[in-house]
C-alpha cells in the first residue's frame, strides 16, 4: 500500500527538483552580468522602511559606473555575523558586510576584517567622519571598517506633562539633581500604583551609560587598565539605587519588560514623563504617538561642569578577510559613506550618520519637516558629547564579569562598595590573564 505509491512519487519529486535553483552547485556568482565584477554585500536592513533606502543607494552605485555590480543580500539581524564568521572561516566571505562598530578593532585583531590602510593611503577619507567614530575602527593605528551610521543617547521629555506639573517645558533638567526634582513633581501616584512616572534612569539605557555620563570615563583607561571602582561610579550607582527605591522593584520591572521587549512604551501615552533613548526613537513617537508634545535635551550632568557625556554606537562597512574583490568592495564602501548616500540615508531613515557633512546637510534638508529637524539637530549637536565604548581587544567579554555585579547591586544583594570592588578585581584578573 504505502510502499508502492511512495517510491515512484519520490523519484518524480527528485526529477522535478533537479531542475530547481536550489540544487545547482557551483559558484553562486557565476552568473556575472557581462564584464562586471559582482560583489556581495550583506546587510541586516530588510524592513519595509530601511530596505528600499539601502537598495536605492546600491542601485545608484551600480548605475554610476559600469565595472562593478553590487548584489545586496538581506541577512537577519544578529545572525548575520555568525554567518559572516562561518563564511570567513570557509574562505568564501561576502565582499562588504555591515558590522558593529564597537567590535571593529577586535575583528581587526582576530584577522576577520581586512586592514583598510592600503586603500586609505591612496584615498584618505578619514576626515569625513566624527573622530570618535573613526577612532573606534582603529586597531594599532589601522582602520578595519568605515563608519556608516551611529547613534547617541538624548533625553526625551513630555512637554504637556511639564506644564501640568508646573514646570517650564522649554527648560529640561540640566543636572541629576534637577532630574530628580522634576521627576518628583511629575510623578502622579494613585494608591500603590503610578498614573505617571517622572523618570527612571534604567529604562532605555543601562547603568553603564550613567557611569560614563558621570565623569566621561569608561571602565578602562587609555592603557587598558580597569578603573570601574571609582568615586564617580559609586556615586552614580547610589543615585540609581535612590531611583530604584523611589519607585520599587515591581513598578520598575513591569515597565522595563514592556520597554525591553520593544512593545508598549509608557512614554507614548504620557505615563512616563522623561525617557532616554536614541534620536531615532523619534520616528516611533512620530508614527505611534503623533500628538505627543515633547522636547529633546542632552543628558543632564552629574554636577555642573561634569559634562553631558552620552554614549553611542553604530555600524561600519567592512571588507571581510578573504574577499575576492577587495578593490571593488572599497569603491562601494566609499560610495556608501560619501555625502550623497549618507544624506539620503539620514533623511529617509531619520538616522544619525557617520559622515559629518551629510549629517549637517540632512538637518537642513528640505525633505525633513521642521519638527524632525529640531530632534535631528540635537542628535548632531550631541555627537560632541558622545563617547563610544569599543570592546577592549584584550578583554572582549569583560561585561560577563561586570553585569552580574551591577545586577547584584541593583537587587540589593551586594553593597555598592563590595560590588564595584569585586568587579574591579575580576577585571584586573582578566586583563592580567590575557597579557
Amino acid at each position, binding site marked *: 500500500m504505502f510502499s508502492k505509491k511512495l517510491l515512484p512519487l519520490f523519484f518524480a519529486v527528485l526529477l522535478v527538483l533537479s531542475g530547481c535553483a536550489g540544487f545547482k552547485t557551483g559558484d553562486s556568482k557565476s552568473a556575472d552580468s557581462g564584464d562586471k565584477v559582482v560583489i556581495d554585500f550583506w546587510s541586516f536592513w530588510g524592513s519595509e522602511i530601511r530596505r528600499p533606502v539601502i537598495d536605492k543607494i546600491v542601485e545608484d552605485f551600480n548605475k554610476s559606473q559600469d565595472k562593478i555590480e553590487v548584489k545586496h543580500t538581506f541577512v537577519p539581524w544578529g545572525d548575520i*555575523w*555568525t554567518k559572516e*564568521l562561518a563564511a*570567513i*572561516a570557509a574562505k568564501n566571505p561576502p565582499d562588504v558586510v555591515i558590522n558593529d562598530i564597537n567590535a571593529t578593532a*577586535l575583528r581587526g585583531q*582576530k*584577522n*576577520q576584517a581586512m586592514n583598510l590602510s592600503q586603500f586609505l593611503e591612496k584615498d584618505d577619507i578619514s576626515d569625513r567622519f566624527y573622530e570618535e567614530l573613526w577612532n573606534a575602527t582603529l586597531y594599532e593605528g589601522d582602520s578595519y571598517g568605515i563608519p556608516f551610521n551611529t547613534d547617541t543617547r538624548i533625553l526625551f521629555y513630555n512637554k504637556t506633562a511639564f506644564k501640568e506639573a508646573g514646570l517650564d517645558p522649554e527648560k529640561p533638567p540640566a543636572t541629576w539633581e534637577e532630574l530628580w526634582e522634576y521627576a518628583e513633581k511629575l510623578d502622579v501616584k494613585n494608591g500603590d500604583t503610578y498614573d505617571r512616572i517622572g523618570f527612571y534612569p534604567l529604562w532605555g539605557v543601562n547603568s553603564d551609560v550613567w557611569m560614563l555620563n558621570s565623569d566621561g570615563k569608561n571602565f578602562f583607561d587609555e592603557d587598558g587598565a580597569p578603573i570601574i571602582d571609582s568615586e564617580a561610579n559609586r556615586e552614580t550607582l547610589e543615585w540609581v539605587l535612590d531611583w530604584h527605591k523611589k519607585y520599587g*522593584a*515591581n*513598578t520598575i*520591572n*513591569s*515597565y*522595563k*519588560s*514592556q520597554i*525591553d*521587549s520593544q*512593545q508598549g512604551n509608557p512614554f507614548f501615552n504620557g505615563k512616563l514623563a522623561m525617557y532616554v533613548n536614541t534620536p531615532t526613537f523619534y520616528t516611533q513617537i512620530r508614527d505611534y504617538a503623533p500628538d505627543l508634545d515633547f522636547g529633546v535635551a542632552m543628558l543632564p550632568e552629574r554636577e555642573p561642569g561634569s559634562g553631558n557625556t552620552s554614549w553611542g554606537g553604530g555600524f561600519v562597512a567592512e571588507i571581510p*578577510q578573504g574577499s575576492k574583490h577587495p578593490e571593488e568592495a572599497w569603491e562601494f564602501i566609499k560610495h556608501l559613506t560619501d555625502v550623497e548616500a549618507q544624506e539620503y540615508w539620514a533623511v529617509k531613515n531619520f538616522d544619525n550618520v557617520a559622515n559629518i557633512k551629510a549629517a549637517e546637510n540632512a538637518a537642513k534638508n528640505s525633505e525633513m519637516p521642521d519638527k524632525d529637524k529640531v530632534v535631528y539637530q540635537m542628535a548632531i549637536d550631541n555627537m560632541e558629547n558622545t563617547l563610544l565604548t569599543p570592546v577592549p581587544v584584550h578583554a*572582549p*567579554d569583560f*561585561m*560577563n*564579569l561586570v*553585569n*552580574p555585579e551591577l*545586577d*547584584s547591586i541593583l*537587587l540589593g*544583594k551586594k553593597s555598592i562598595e563590595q560590588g564595584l570592588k569585586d568587579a574591579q578585581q575580576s577585571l584586573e584578573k582578566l586583563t592580567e*590573564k590575557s597579557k
Partner: protein
Amino acid sequence: MRKKLNYKRMEGLQGYVFILPWIVGFIAFTAGPLIFSFAASFTNYNITSQMDFVGFDNYENLFTADNLFWTSLYNTLYYVLFSIPLTTAGAIFLSALLNQDVPGIRFFRTIYYLPAVLSGVGVYLLWMQLLDPGTGLVNTALGWFGIPGPNWLFDPDWTKPALIFMKLWSVGGGMLLYLASMQGVSKSLYEAAKIDGASSWQQFRFITIPMITPVIFFDIVTSLIGGFQIFQEAYVMSNGEGGPVNSMLFYNLYMWKKAFESFDMGYAMAMSWILFIIVFIITIINLKLAPRWVHYEGEER
C-alpha cells in the same frame, strides 16, 4: 572448520547494510567536524587567525580559573533536574487524557500540539510579554487567585522556574510520542485488567506505564541531552547576557559567548567536550539502568 561466511555472518553484514546510510553520513558530515572540534579544544583556535597547540590549558582554565564555567554548569543542572521530571510527567499525563474518547478530541490534540510547532525567537519574546510582572498575562491570572506573582525574569531566583514553566507549556511534542505508543497497547490488556477489578488509575499505572516504557526511556534520554543544551530561550530572554546575576547563564549560552563574542573557539570546544562527557556518562548510566524498568514486548523470551 570453515567459518568464513556462514549465514550468521551474512546476517551481520546485512546489519551493516542497514546502518550504512548512517555510517556514510557520519563519516561524510559529522566525523570530520567532530574530530576537528576535539583537536581544536587543545588549541587557542579563534576561527580566523590563530590555532596553536596549548595542551590542556583550556581544560585547566575551565576547572581552575573560570567561575562562570561553574555558574553555567550549576544553572544547567538546576534546569535539567527540574524540567526533565516535570515535562516527562506532564507529557505522559497529558497524553493519557488525550488518549480518551472525549468529544472534540481531535481539536484538543491539535491545540495541545500547537506550542510544539511554535518555535523560534518570536515565541520567546511573546513569553517575555506574558511573564511581565505587572501587566503580563501570567501574573494577571495568578492575581485572580490572590497569588502575588513573582518578578519572573527580573528576579534571579525566578528566571529558571520561568523557563521551566515555559517548557511545560510546550510538552505537546512529547505528548505526540506517548500518544503514538499508547495506541500500540493492546485493548485486551485493559479488558483483562478490568475483569481483575483494576481501577482506571491502576490500569494506567500497571498497564499503560509499563507498556510505554520504551518511549519514556527515549523521552528521558533525549530530553536530558536536549536539556543540557538549553540555549535559545535563555539567549533571547536575557538579551544575550545570561542575566540577571548570571541566573540564565546556561552552559551553552556561555559557550556561545566564548565562541562567537570573544572568538575563543578553542575554549568553547573544550567546554563542549566536557559537556559531552557529562551527558555521555549520564546517558550510559541511563542505558545501564534501562533493563531494570524498560519493558520491550519484542524481547520477551
